[in-house]
Protein backbone atom coordinates (compact mmCIF):
# COMPACT_ATOMS: atom_id res chain seq x y z
CA UNK A 1 0.00 0.00 0.00
CA UNK A 2 2.99 2.31 0.52
CA UNK A 3 3.50 3.03 -3.24
CA UNK A 4 -0.04 4.44 -3.44
CA UNK A 5 0.63 6.75 -0.54
CA UNK A 6 3.93 7.88 -2.07
CA UNK A 7 2.19 8.56 -5.38
CA UNK A 8 -0.53 10.56 -3.69
CA UNK A 9 2.11 12.50 -1.74
CA UNK A 10 3.88 13.39 -4.98
CA UNK A 11 0.62 14.39 -6.65
CA UNK A 12 -0.33 16.52 -3.67
CA UNK A 13 3.05 18.26 -3.80
CA UNK A 14 2.55 18.96 -7.52
CA UNK A 15 -0.82 20.50 -6.66
CA UNK A 16 0.72 22.65 -3.93
CA UNK A 17 3.41 23.71 -6.36
CA UNK A 18 0.76 24.74 -8.87
CA UNK A 19 -1.29 26.74 -6.38
CA UNK A 20 1.76 28.52 -5.00
CA UNK A 21 3.47 29.38 -8.27
CA UNK A 22 0.70 30.07 -10.75
CA UNK A 23 -1.04 33.41 -10.89
CA UNK A 24 -3.86 32.49 -13.24
CA UNK A 25 -7.01 31.63 -11.33
CA UNK A 26 -8.09 28.82 -13.69
CA UNK A 27 -4.70 27.11 -13.50
CA UNK A 28 -4.81 27.45 -9.73
CA UNK A 29 -8.16 25.66 -9.75
CA UNK A 30 -6.60 22.91 -11.88
CA UNK A 31 -3.90 22.56 -9.22
CA UNK A 32 -6.52 22.43 -6.45
CA UNK A 33 -8.32 19.62 -8.29
CA UNK A 34 -5.01 17.72 -8.47
CA UNK A 35 -4.63 18.07 -4.71
CA UNK A 36 -8.20 16.88 -4.12
CA UNK A 37 -7.54 13.81 -6.26
CA UNK A 38 -4.40 13.03 -4.32
CA UNK A 39 -6.52 13.08 -1.16
CA UNK A 40 -9.17 10.86 -2.75
CA UNK A 41 -6.47 8.41 -3.79
CA UNK A 42 -5.37 8.22 -0.17
CA UNK A 43 -8.90 7.60 1.05
CA UNK A 44 -9.45 4.77 -1.41
CA UNK A 45 -6.10 3.26 -0.49
CA UNK A 46 -6.87 3.35 3.23
CA UNK A 47 -10.30 1.91 2.51
CA UNK A 48 -8.49 -1.21 1.34
CA UNK A 49 -6.21 -1.17 4.34
CA UNK A 50 -8.62 -0.84 7.26
CA UNK A 51 -11.89 -2.77 7.33
CA UNK A 52 -12.47 -2.99 3.57
CA UNK A 53 -15.95 -4.35 4.30
CA UNK A 54 -17.07 -0.99 5.74
CA UNK A 55 -16.16 0.96 2.57
CA UNK A 56 -15.69 4.12 4.61
CA UNK A 57 -12.83 5.35 2.45
CA UNK A 58 -14.73 4.83 -0.77
CA UNK A 59 -17.79 6.62 0.58
CA UNK A 60 -15.53 9.50 1.62
CA UNK A 61 -14.00 9.56 -1.87
CA UNK A 62 -17.48 9.79 -3.41
CA UNK A 63 -18.31 12.65 -1.04
CA UNK A 64 -14.98 14.24 -1.93
CA UNK A 65 -15.88 14.14 -5.61
CA UNK A 66 -19.26 15.71 -4.84
CA UNK A 67 -17.69 18.47 -2.78
CA UNK A 68 -15.07 19.03 -5.50
CA UNK A 69 -17.89 19.53 -8.01
CA UNK A 70 -19.58 22.14 -5.79
CA UNK A 71 -16.25 23.82 -5.16
CA UNK A 72 -15.43 23.97 -8.89
CA UNK A 73 -18.88 25.39 -9.67
CA UNK A 74 -18.60 28.19 -7.12
CA UNK A 75 -14.91 28.79 -7.81
CA UNK A 76 -15.42 29.15 -11.54
CA UNK A 77 -18.42 31.44 -10.97
CA UNK A 78 -16.13 33.58 -8.81
CA UNK A 79 -13.45 33.55 -11.52
CA UNK A 80 -15.96 34.58 -14.19
CA UNK A 81 -17.27 37.40 -12.01
CA UNK A 82 -13.73 38.60 -11.40
CA UNK A 83 -12.98 38.37 -15.10
CA UNK A 84 -15.91 40.52 -16.01
CA UNK A 85 -15.05 43.14 -13.44
CA UNK A 86 -11.29 43.30 -14.01
CA UNK A 87 -10.91 41.90 -17.53
CA UNK A 88 -8.41 39.30 -16.41
CA UNK A 89 -8.21 35.98 -14.61
CA UNK A 90 -4.78 36.84 -13.24
CA UNK A 91 -5.12 36.96 -9.46
CA UNK A 92 -2.34 39.51 -9.02
CA UNK A 93 -4.15 42.05 -11.17
CA UNK A 94 -7.19 41.83 -8.97
CA UNK A 95 -6.86 44.48 -6.32
CA UNK A 96 -9.93 44.35 -4.15
CA UNK A 97 -9.03 47.52 -2.24
CA UNK A 98 -9.00 49.60 -5.39
CA UNK A 99 -12.14 47.85 -6.72
CA UNK B 1 0.14 -15.37 -18.33
CA UNK B 2 -3.59 -14.93 -18.01
CA UNK B 3 -2.96 -11.19 -17.81
CA UNK B 4 -1.37 -11.20 -21.24
CA UNK B 5 -4.37 -13.16 -22.52
CA UNK B 6 -6.78 -10.61 -21.06
CA UNK B 7 -4.78 -7.78 -22.58
CA UNK B 8 -4.85 -9.53 -25.94
CA UNK B 9 -8.57 -10.18 -25.55
CA UNK B 10 -9.13 -6.50 -24.84
CA UNK B 11 -7.03 -5.45 -27.81
CA UNK B 12 -8.73 -7.93 -30.13
CA UNK B 13 -12.20 -6.93 -29.04
CA UNK B 14 -11.19 -3.28 -29.40
CA UNK B 15 -10.34 -3.96 -33.03
CA UNK B 16 -13.64 -5.84 -33.41
CA UNK B 17 -15.61 -2.99 -31.82
CA UNK B 18 -13.97 -0.39 -34.02
CA UNK B 19 -14.66 -2.46 -37.12
CA UNK B 20 -18.23 -2.97 -35.92
CA UNK B 21 -18.75 0.78 -35.54
CA UNK B 22 -17.30 1.27 -39.02
CA UNK B 23 -19.66 -1.34 -40.44
CA UNK B 24 -22.62 0.13 -38.52
CA UNK B 25 -21.83 3.57 -39.89
CA UNK B 26 -21.58 2.22 -43.44
CA UNK B 27 -24.91 0.43 -43.24
CA UNK B 28 -26.73 3.15 -41.33
CA UNK B 29 -25.70 5.95 -43.66
CA UNK B 30 -27.13 4.02 -46.57
CA UNK B 31 -30.20 3.05 -44.55
CA UNK B 32 -30.72 6.62 -43.45
CA UNK B 33 -30.51 7.91 -47.00
CA UNK B 34 -32.94 5.33 -48.29
CA UNK B 35 -35.36 5.75 -45.38
CA UNK B 36 -35.29 9.53 -45.65
CA UNK B 37 -35.81 9.30 -49.39
CA UNK B 38 -38.82 7.05 -48.90
CA UNK B 39 -40.31 9.37 -46.30
CA UNK B 40 -39.82 12.40 -48.52
CA UNK B 41 -41.03 10.55 -51.62
CA UNK B 42 -37.61 10.58 -53.26
CA UNK B 43 -35.47 7.68 -54.44
CA UNK B 44 -32.12 8.21 -52.75
CA UNK B 45 -28.80 6.93 -54.07
CA UNK B 46 -29.30 4.19 -56.69
CA UNK B 47 -26.38 4.52 -59.10
CA UNK B 48 -23.40 2.99 -57.31
CA UNK B 49 -23.74 -0.78 -57.40
CA UNK B 50 -27.05 -2.67 -57.34
CA UNK B 51 -29.75 -0.46 -55.76
CA UNK B 52 -27.02 1.97 -54.67
CA UNK B 53 -25.67 -0.50 -52.11
CA UNK B 54 -22.08 0.51 -52.77
CA UNK B 55 -22.71 4.23 -52.27
CA UNK B 56 -21.29 4.45 -48.75
CA UNK B 57 -18.31 2.26 -49.70
CA UNK B 58 -17.50 4.82 -52.37
CA UNK B 59 -17.98 7.60 -49.80
CA UNK B 60 -15.55 5.92 -47.40
CA UNK B 61 -12.88 5.58 -50.09
CA UNK B 62 -13.38 9.23 -50.96
CA UNK B 63 -13.04 10.29 -47.31
CA UNK B 64 -9.88 8.27 -46.76
CA UNK B 65 -8.03 9.72 -49.74
CA UNK B 66 -9.25 13.30 -49.28
CA UNK B 67 -6.86 16.07 -48.33
CA UNK B 68 -6.58 16.87 -44.64
CA UNK B 69 -7.04 20.64 -44.41
CA UNK B 70 -6.35 22.61 -41.25
CA UNK B 71 -7.02 26.34 -40.95
CA UNK B 72 -3.99 28.55 -40.44
CA UNK B 73 -4.88 29.77 -36.96
CA UNK B 74 -6.22 26.47 -35.66
CA UNK B 75 -4.68 25.14 -32.46
CA UNK B 76 -2.76 22.08 -33.78
CA UNK B 77 -3.03 20.00 -30.58
CA UNK B 78 -6.70 20.60 -29.85
CA UNK B 79 -7.56 20.27 -33.56
CA UNK B 80 -6.15 16.73 -33.58
CA UNK B 81 -7.53 15.78 -30.16
CA UNK B 82 -11.10 16.88 -30.86
CA UNK B 83 -12.14 14.13 -33.31
CA UNK B 84 -10.30 11.46 -31.33
CA UNK B 85 -11.99 12.41 -28.07
CA UNK B 86 -15.35 12.29 -29.85
CA UNK B 87 -14.91 8.95 -31.59
CA UNK B 88 -13.03 6.93 -28.96
CA UNK B 89 -15.68 7.14 -26.17
CA UNK B 90 -18.40 6.17 -28.64
CA UNK B 91 -16.53 2.93 -29.38
CA UNK B 92 -15.55 2.40 -25.73
CA UNK B 93 -19.21 2.34 -24.69
CA UNK B 94 -19.69 -0.91 -26.66
CA UNK B 95 -17.75 -2.81 -24.00
CA UNK B 96 -20.73 -3.40 -21.71
CA UNK B 97 -23.52 -4.00 -24.25
CA UNK B 98 -24.72 -7.64 -24.07
CA UNK B 99 -25.64 -8.57 -27.62
CA UNK B 100 -26.88 -11.94 -26.52
CA UNK B 101 -27.40 -13.63 -23.18
CA UNK B 102 -23.67 -14.41 -22.70
CA UNK B 103 -22.36 -12.36 -25.62
CA UNK B 104 -20.87 -9.32 -23.91
CA UNK B 105 -17.35 -8.02 -24.30
CA UNK B 106 -16.90 -7.40 -20.60
CA UNK B 107 -19.63 -7.52 -17.95
CA UNK B 108 -18.32 -4.78 -15.68
CA UNK B 109 -19.93 -4.63 -12.23
CA UNK B 110 -20.64 -0.96 -12.78
CA UNK B 111 -21.52 -1.39 -16.46
CA UNK B 112 -24.54 0.91 -16.48
CA UNK B 113 -22.73 3.87 -14.93
CA UNK B 114 -19.79 3.12 -17.22
CA UNK B 115 -22.07 3.33 -20.24
CA UNK B 116 -23.37 6.73 -19.12
CA UNK B 117 -19.99 8.07 -17.97
CA UNK B 118 -17.76 7.25 -20.93
CA UNK B 119 -19.79 9.02 -23.66
CA UNK B 120 -19.72 12.06 -21.36
CA UNK B 121 -16.11 12.53 -22.45
CA UNK B 122 -17.47 13.32 -25.92
CA UNK B 123 -18.44 16.79 -24.70
CA UNK B 124 -14.78 17.61 -24.13
CA UNK B 125 -14.05 16.52 -27.71
CA UNK B 126 -16.84 18.67 -29.13
CA UNK B 127 -15.71 21.74 -27.20
CA UNK B 128 -12.08 21.20 -28.23
CA UNK B 129 -12.99 20.71 -31.89
CA UNK B 130 -15.15 23.81 -31.96
CA UNK B 131 -12.55 25.87 -30.16
CA UNK B 132 -9.54 24.63 -32.12
CA UNK B 133 -10.96 25.43 -35.54
CA UNK B 134 -10.73 29.21 -35.05
CA UNK B 135 -14.00 29.72 -36.87
CA UNK B 136 -17.10 31.50 -35.60
CA UNK B 137 -19.48 28.79 -36.78
CA UNK B 138 -17.38 26.01 -35.26
CA UNK B 139 -17.01 27.83 -31.95
CA UNK B 140 -20.72 28.52 -31.67
CA UNK B 141 -21.57 25.00 -32.84
CA UNK B 142 -19.24 23.42 -30.28
CA UNK B 143 -20.69 25.48 -27.45
CA UNK B 144 -24.28 24.76 -28.49
CA UNK B 145 -23.66 21.04 -28.93
CA UNK B 146 -22.13 20.68 -25.52
CA UNK B 147 -24.79 22.83 -23.84
CA UNK B 148 -27.45 20.63 -25.39
CA UNK B 149 -25.61 17.44 -24.46
CA UNK B 150 -25.24 18.33 -20.81
CA UNK B 151 -28.85 19.58 -20.59
CA UNK B 152 -30.30 16.29 -21.73
CA UNK B 153 -27.77 14.16 -19.87
CA UNK B 154 -29.49 14.64 -16.50
CA UNK B 155 -33.06 13.56 -17.33
CA UNK B 156 -31.61 10.63 -19.26
CA UNK B 157 -29.48 9.57 -16.30
CA UNK B 158 -32.41 9.87 -13.89
CA UNK B 159 -34.53 7.73 -16.20
CA UNK B 160 -31.84 5.05 -16.07
CA UNK B 161 -31.74 5.30 -12.25
CA UNK B 162 -35.35 4.04 -12.09
CA UNK B 163 -34.34 0.96 -14.07
CA UNK B 164 -31.38 0.31 -11.77
CA UNK B 165 -33.71 0.66 -8.78
CA UNK B 166 -35.97 -2.09 -10.07
CA UNK B 167 -33.19 -4.36 -11.28
CA UNK B 168 -31.09 -4.01 -8.13
CA UNK B 169 -27.81 -4.18 -10.03
CA UNK B 170 -25.47 -2.00 -12.06
CA UNK B 171 -24.31 -4.94 -14.17
CA UNK B 172 -25.74 -4.92 -17.68
CA UNK B 173 -26.00 -8.70 -17.83
CA UNK B 174 -28.14 -8.85 -14.68
CA UNK B 175 -30.69 -6.64 -16.43
CA UNK B 176 -31.46 -9.47 -18.83
CA UNK B 177 -32.45 -11.85 -16.03
CA UNK B 178 -34.35 -9.14 -14.20
CA UNK B 179 -36.48 -8.57 -17.29
CA UNK B 180 -37.19 -12.25 -17.91
CA UNK B 181 -40.79 -12.06 -16.63
CA UNK B 182 -41.74 -8.68 -18.01
CA UNK B 183 -39.69 -6.01 -19.87
CA UNK B 184 -39.35 -2.69 -18.07
CA UNK B 185 -41.15 -0.76 -20.79
CA UNK B 186 -44.35 -2.11 -19.19
CA UNK B 187 -43.35 -1.17 -15.65
CA UNK B 188 -41.64 2.13 -16.44
CA UNK B 189 -43.31 3.62 -19.52
CA UNK B 190 -42.56 7.21 -18.46
CA UNK B 191 -38.86 6.43 -18.01
CA UNK B 192 -38.86 4.87 -21.47
CA UNK B 193 -40.38 7.96 -23.08
CA UNK B 194 -37.93 10.26 -21.28
CA UNK B 195 -35.02 8.03 -22.22
CA UNK B 196 -35.95 7.91 -25.90
CA UNK B 197 -36.60 11.65 -26.22
CA UNK B 198 -33.43 12.69 -24.40
CA UNK B 199 -31.38 10.13 -26.33
CA UNK B 200 -32.57 11.70 -29.57
CA UNK B 201 -31.13 14.95 -28.25
CA UNK B 202 -27.89 13.38 -27.09
CA UNK B 203 -27.08 11.93 -30.48
CA UNK B 204 -27.92 15.25 -32.13
CA UNK B 205 -30.87 14.10 -34.18
CA UNK B 206 -33.73 16.22 -35.47
CA UNK B 207 -35.78 17.62 -33.81
CA UNK B 208 -32.82 18.23 -31.53
CA UNK B 209 -30.10 18.90 -34.12
CA UNK B 210 -29.56 22.60 -33.37
CA UNK B 211 -25.78 22.06 -33.11
CA UNK B 212 -25.60 21.10 -36.74
CA UNK B 213 -28.46 23.17 -38.07
CA UNK B 214 -27.10 23.47 -41.59
CA UNK B 215 -29.03 26.60 -42.41
CA UNK B 216 -27.74 28.43 -39.33
CA UNK B 217 -24.30 27.12 -38.46
CA UNK B 218 -22.95 25.59 -41.70
CA UNK B 219 -21.90 22.28 -40.12
CA UNK B 220 -21.45 23.16 -36.46
CA UNK B 221 -18.33 22.12 -34.66
CA UNK B 222 -16.94 20.11 -37.58
CA UNK B 223 -17.16 22.86 -40.19
CA UNK B 224 -13.40 23.05 -40.58
CA UNK B 225 -12.76 19.32 -40.68
CA UNK B 226 -12.34 17.25 -43.84
CA UNK B 227 -11.31 13.80 -44.94
CA UNK B 228 -10.60 11.18 -42.34
CA UNK B 229 -10.74 13.50 -39.34
CA UNK B 230 -14.25 14.50 -40.36
CA UNK B 231 -15.24 10.88 -40.81
CA UNK B 232 -14.25 10.27 -37.17
CA UNK B 233 -17.08 12.61 -36.15
CA UNK B 234 -19.34 10.64 -38.43
CA UNK B 235 -18.25 7.35 -36.87
CA UNK B 236 -18.89 8.82 -33.44
CA UNK B 237 -22.37 9.97 -34.40
CA UNK B 238 -23.57 6.66 -35.81
CA UNK B 239 -21.67 4.61 -33.25
CA UNK B 240 -23.35 6.57 -30.46
CA UNK B 241 -26.71 6.24 -32.23
CA UNK B 242 -26.48 2.47 -32.31
CA UNK B 243 -25.06 2.24 -28.79
CA UNK B 244 -27.96 4.33 -27.48
CA UNK B 245 -30.49 2.20 -29.34
CA UNK B 246 -28.87 -0.97 -28.04
CA UNK B 247 -28.96 0.43 -24.53
CA UNK B 248 -32.65 1.30 -24.87
CA UNK B 249 -33.21 -2.30 -25.93
CA UNK B 250 -31.28 -3.53 -22.93
CA UNK B 251 -32.89 -1.22 -20.37
CA UNK B 252 -36.52 -1.30 -21.43
CA UNK B 253 -37.16 -3.91 -24.11
CA UNK B 254 -35.71 -6.94 -22.38
CA UNK B 255 -32.48 -7.13 -24.38
CA UNK B 256 -32.01 -10.48 -26.05
CA UNK B 257 -34.94 -12.10 -24.24
CA UNK B 258 -37.42 -13.69 -26.58
CA UNK B 259 -38.85 -17.05 -27.62
CA UNK B 260 -37.56 -19.52 -30.24
CA UNK B 261 -34.88 -17.43 -31.97
CA UNK B 262 -31.39 -17.03 -30.48
CA UNK B 263 -30.79 -14.06 -28.21
CA UNK B 264 -28.49 -12.28 -30.67
CA UNK B 265 -31.21 -12.17 -33.30
CA UNK B 266 -33.72 -10.74 -30.82
CA UNK B 267 -31.28 -8.15 -29.57
CA UNK B 268 -30.16 -6.93 -32.98
CA UNK B 269 -33.74 -6.99 -34.26
CA UNK B 270 -35.10 -4.93 -31.37
CA UNK B 271 -32.24 -2.43 -31.50
CA UNK B 272 -32.67 -1.98 -35.26
CA UNK B 273 -36.34 -1.20 -34.69
CA UNK B 274 -35.28 1.49 -32.20
CA UNK B 275 -32.78 2.87 -34.72
CA UNK B 276 -35.52 2.95 -37.34
CA UNK B 277 -37.74 4.92 -34.93
CA UNK B 278 -34.92 7.42 -34.43
CA UNK B 279 -34.56 7.87 -38.19
CA UNK B 280 -38.30 8.07 -38.67
CA UNK B 281 -38.58 10.85 -36.10
CA UNK B 282 -35.65 12.68 -37.66
CA UNK B 283 -37.21 12.90 -41.06
CA UNK B 284 -40.73 13.64 -39.87
CA UNK B 285 -40.43 16.43 -37.32
CA UNK B 286 -39.14 19.98 -37.83
CA UNK B 287 -36.23 21.35 -35.82
CA UNK B 288 -36.59 23.12 -32.47
CA UNK B 289 -35.20 26.59 -31.82
CA UNK B 290 -32.29 26.78 -29.40
CA UNK B 291 -34.36 28.40 -26.65
CA UNK B 292 -37.20 25.89 -27.06
CA UNK B 293 -34.63 23.12 -26.83
CA UNK B 294 -33.23 24.34 -23.53
CA UNK B 295 -36.66 25.09 -22.06
CA UNK B 296 -37.79 21.58 -22.92
CA UNK B 297 -34.76 20.06 -21.22
CA UNK B 298 -34.82 22.05 -18.00
CA UNK B 299 -38.49 22.88 -17.51
CA UNK B 300 -40.15 19.74 -18.85
CA UNK B 301 -37.81 16.76 -18.90
CA UNK B 302 -35.84 17.44 -15.73
CA UNK B 303 -38.84 18.02 -13.41
CA UNK B 304 -40.68 15.15 -15.09
CA UNK B 305 -37.79 12.78 -14.54
CA UNK B 306 -37.46 13.83 -10.88
CA UNK B 307 -41.17 13.25 -10.23
CA UNK B 308 -41.00 9.99 -12.14
CA UNK B 309 -38.05 8.87 -10.04
CA UNK B 310 -39.76 9.57 -6.71
CA UNK B 311 -43.05 8.03 -7.85
CA UNK B 312 -41.32 4.93 -9.19
CA UNK B 313 -39.43 4.49 -5.92
CA UNK B 314 -42.64 4.94 -3.92
CA UNK B 315 -44.64 2.45 -5.99
CA UNK B 316 -41.77 -0.04 -5.92
CA UNK B 317 -41.64 0.09 -2.12
CA UNK B 318 -45.42 -0.12 -1.76
CA UNK B 319 -45.67 -3.13 -4.06
CA UNK B 320 -42.49 -4.74 -2.78
CA UNK B 321 -43.31 -4.65 0.93
Amino acid at each position, binding site marked *: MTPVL*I*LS*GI*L*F*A*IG*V*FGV*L*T*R*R*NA*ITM*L*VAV*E*IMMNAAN*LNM*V*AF*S*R*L*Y*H*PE*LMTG*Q*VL*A*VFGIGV*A*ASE*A*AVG*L*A*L*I*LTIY*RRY*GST*DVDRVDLLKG | MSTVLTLGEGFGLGVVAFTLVGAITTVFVLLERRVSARIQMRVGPTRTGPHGLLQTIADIVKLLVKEDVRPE*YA*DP*VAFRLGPMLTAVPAVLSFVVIPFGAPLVMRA*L*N*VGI*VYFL*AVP*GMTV*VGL*LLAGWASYDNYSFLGG*LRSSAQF*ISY*EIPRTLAVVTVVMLAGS*LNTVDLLDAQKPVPYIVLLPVSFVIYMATTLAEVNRIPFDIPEAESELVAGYHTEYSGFRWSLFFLAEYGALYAAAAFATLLFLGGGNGPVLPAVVWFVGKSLVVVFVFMWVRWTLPRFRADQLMRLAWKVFLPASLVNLVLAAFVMMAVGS
Partner: protein
Amino acid sequence: MTASDVLFIIFGVIAAACALYGVLTRYLLRSIVALGAFLTAVAGEFYLLAADFVAVVQIFVYVGGIVVLMLFALMLSTSGERQPLAGSDRRGLGSLLAYVLGGMVVWATVGTRLPVVPGRLPASVPYLGRALLGGQVFAFEVLGVILLAAVVAALALVRSERL
Protein backbone atom coordinates in the same frame (compact mmCIF):
# COMPACT_ATOMS: atom_id res chain seq x y z
CA MET C 1 5.93 -7.92 -9.83
CA THR C 2 2.32 -8.63 -10.69
CA ALA C 3 0.30 -7.16 -13.52
CA SER C 4 -1.46 -4.75 -11.22
CA ASP C 5 1.90 -3.43 -10.00
CA VAL C 6 2.89 -2.75 -13.61
CA LEU C 7 -0.46 -1.07 -14.29
CA PHE C 8 -0.15 0.90 -11.07
CA ILE C 9 3.23 2.24 -12.16
CA ILE C 10 2.00 3.06 -15.68
CA PHE C 11 -1.07 4.94 -14.39
CA GLY C 12 1.02 6.63 -11.71
CA VAL C 13 3.60 7.89 -14.20
CA ILE C 14 0.85 9.12 -16.54
CA ALA C 15 -0.94 10.85 -13.65
CA ALA C 16 2.20 12.54 -12.33
CA ALA C 17 3.34 13.59 -15.81
CA CYS C 18 -0.07 15.04 -16.69
CA ALA C 19 -0.34 16.81 -13.34
CA LEU C 20 3.10 18.32 -13.80
CA TYR C 21 2.34 19.40 -17.36
CA GLY C 22 -0.99 20.82 -16.20
CA VAL C 23 0.60 23.10 -13.62
CA LEU C 24 3.63 24.02 -15.77
CA THR C 25 2.19 24.77 -19.20
CA ARG C 26 1.45 28.36 -20.16
CA TYR C 27 -1.45 27.35 -22.41
CA LEU C 28 -4.65 27.45 -20.38
CA LEU C 29 -6.52 25.08 -22.70
CA ARG C 30 -3.77 22.46 -22.56
CA SER C 31 -3.65 22.76 -18.81
CA ILE C 32 -7.33 21.79 -18.60
CA VAL C 33 -6.90 18.95 -21.12
CA ALA C 34 -3.94 17.66 -19.10
CA LEU C 35 -6.18 17.73 -16.01
CA GLY C 36 -8.65 15.54 -17.91
CA ALA C 37 -5.92 13.00 -18.74
CA PHE C 38 -4.70 13.11 -15.13
CA LEU C 39 -8.20 12.40 -13.84
CA THR C 40 -8.58 9.44 -16.20
CA ALA C 41 -5.28 7.97 -15.00
CA VAL C 42 -6.36 8.41 -11.36
CA ALA C 43 -9.65 6.69 -12.24
CA GLY C 44 -7.52 3.77 -13.44
CA GLU C 45 -5.76 3.72 -10.05
CA PHE C 46 -9.12 3.71 -8.28
CA TYR C 47 -10.26 0.74 -10.31
CA LEU C 48 -7.04 -1.13 -9.48
CA LEU C 49 -7.66 -0.42 -5.79
CA ALA C 50 -11.00 -2.27 -6.04
CA ALA C 51 -13.01 0.96 -6.10
CA ASP C 52 -14.74 0.46 -9.44
CA PHE C 53 -17.70 2.66 -8.60
CA VAL C 54 -15.46 5.54 -7.52
CA ALA C 55 -13.54 5.13 -10.79
CA VAL C 56 -16.59 5.49 -13.04
CA VAL C 57 -17.90 8.30 -10.87
CA GLN C 58 -14.56 10.02 -11.37
CA ILE C 59 -15.05 9.84 -15.15
CA PHE C 60 -18.73 10.80 -14.84
CA VAL C 61 -18.38 13.86 -12.62
CA TYR C 62 -14.81 15.00 -13.12
CA VAL C 63 -14.13 14.42 -16.81
CA GLY C 64 -17.73 14.77 -17.99
CA GLY C 65 -18.57 17.57 -15.58
CA ILE C 66 -15.84 19.59 -13.94
CA VAL C 67 -13.50 19.59 -16.95
CA VAL C 68 -16.41 20.68 -19.16
CA LEU C 69 -17.28 23.41 -16.66
CA MET C 70 -13.66 24.61 -16.73
CA LEU C 71 -13.62 24.63 -20.53
CA PHE C 72 -16.82 26.70 -20.51
CA ALA C 73 -15.28 29.10 -18.00
CA LEU C 74 -12.14 29.39 -20.14
CA MET C 75 -14.17 30.06 -23.26
CA LEU C 76 -16.23 32.69 -21.43
CA SER C 77 -13.17 34.47 -20.09
CA THR C 78 -11.05 35.08 -23.17
CA SER C 79 -11.03 38.37 -24.99
CA GLY C 80 -10.51 37.15 -28.52
CA GLU C 81 -6.84 36.26 -28.21
CA ARG C 82 -5.72 33.34 -30.34
CA GLN C 83 -4.18 31.29 -27.59
CA PRO C 84 -5.07 32.30 -24.04
CA LEU C 85 -1.91 32.25 -22.00
CA ALA C 86 -1.44 32.47 -18.28
CA GLY C 87 0.46 35.57 -17.21
CA SER C 88 3.83 35.58 -15.49
CA ASP C 89 4.32 33.31 -12.50
CA ARG C 90 6.37 33.44 -9.35
CA ARG C 91 8.60 30.46 -9.00
CA GLY C 92 11.15 30.30 -6.21
CA LEU C 93 9.68 30.16 -2.75
CA GLY C 94 6.58 28.27 -3.90
CA SER C 95 8.53 25.53 -5.64
CA LEU C 96 10.88 25.23 -2.67
CA LEU C 97 7.89 24.80 -0.33
CA ALA C 98 6.39 22.18 -2.63
CA TYR C 99 9.67 20.23 -2.77
CA VAL C 100 9.96 20.31 1.01
CA LEU C 101 6.34 19.24 1.51
CA GLY C 102 6.56 16.45 -1.09
CA GLY C 103 9.85 15.22 0.38
CA MET C 104 8.41 15.21 3.89
CA VAL C 105 5.30 13.30 2.87
CA VAL C 106 7.29 10.66 0.98
CA TRP C 107 9.82 10.37 3.83
CA ALA C 108 7.08 9.97 6.40
CA THR C 109 5.26 7.40 4.28
CA VAL C 110 8.34 5.27 3.67
CA GLY C 111 9.29 5.39 7.33
CA THR C 112 5.92 4.30 8.69
CA ARG C 113 4.79 0.72 9.14
CA LEU C 114 1.12 0.75 8.36
CA PRO C 115 -0.96 -1.57 10.54
CA VAL C 116 -3.38 -3.58 8.43
CA VAL C 117 -6.83 -4.51 9.69
CA PRO C 118 -7.87 -7.16 7.20
CA GLY C 119 -11.44 -7.81 6.24
CA ARG C 120 -13.40 -9.40 3.44
CA LEU C 121 -13.39 -7.25 0.33
CA PRO C 122 -17.01 -7.05 -0.84
CA ALA C 123 -18.38 -6.19 -4.26
CA SER C 124 -18.35 -2.44 -3.98
CA VAL C 125 -21.69 -1.18 -5.28
CA PRO C 126 -24.31 -2.65 -2.91
CA TYR C 127 -22.08 -2.06 0.10
CA LEU C 128 -21.42 1.51 -0.96
CA GLY C 129 -25.16 2.17 -1.10
CA ARG C 130 -25.71 0.56 2.31
CA ALA C 131 -22.88 2.60 3.81
CA LEU C 132 -24.31 5.80 2.31
CA LEU C 133 -27.73 5.23 3.83
CA GLY C 134 -26.43 3.55 6.98
CA GLY C 135 -23.58 5.07 8.94
CA GLN C 136 -22.97 7.97 6.58
CA VAL C 137 -26.54 9.16 6.16
CA PHE C 138 -25.88 12.46 7.93
CA ALA C 139 -22.99 13.26 5.60
CA PHE C 140 -25.21 12.24 2.71
CA GLU C 141 -27.87 14.79 3.62
CA VAL C 142 -25.20 17.42 4.31
CA LEU C 143 -23.89 16.87 0.79
CA GLY C 144 -27.41 17.66 -0.44
CA VAL C 145 -27.27 20.94 1.48
CA ILE C 146 -23.81 21.69 0.05
CA LEU C 147 -25.06 21.11 -3.49
CA LEU C 148 -28.05 23.39 -2.87
CA ALA C 149 -25.79 26.05 -1.39
CA ALA C 150 -23.43 25.74 -4.35
CA VAL C 151 -26.25 26.35 -6.84
CA VAL C 152 -27.59 29.33 -4.91
CA ALA C 153 -24.16 30.87 -4.31
CA ALA C 154 -22.83 30.38 -7.81
CA LEU C 155 -26.03 31.68 -9.39
CA ALA C 156 -25.97 34.70 -7.10
CA LEU C 157 -22.37 35.40 -8.14
CA VAL C 158 -23.05 35.00 -11.82
CA ARG C 159 -26.31 36.98 -11.71
CA SER C 160 -24.84 39.87 -9.76
CA GLU C 161 -23.02 40.95 -12.89
CA ARG C 162 -25.53 41.60 -15.61
CA LEU C 163 -24.34 41.46 -19.16
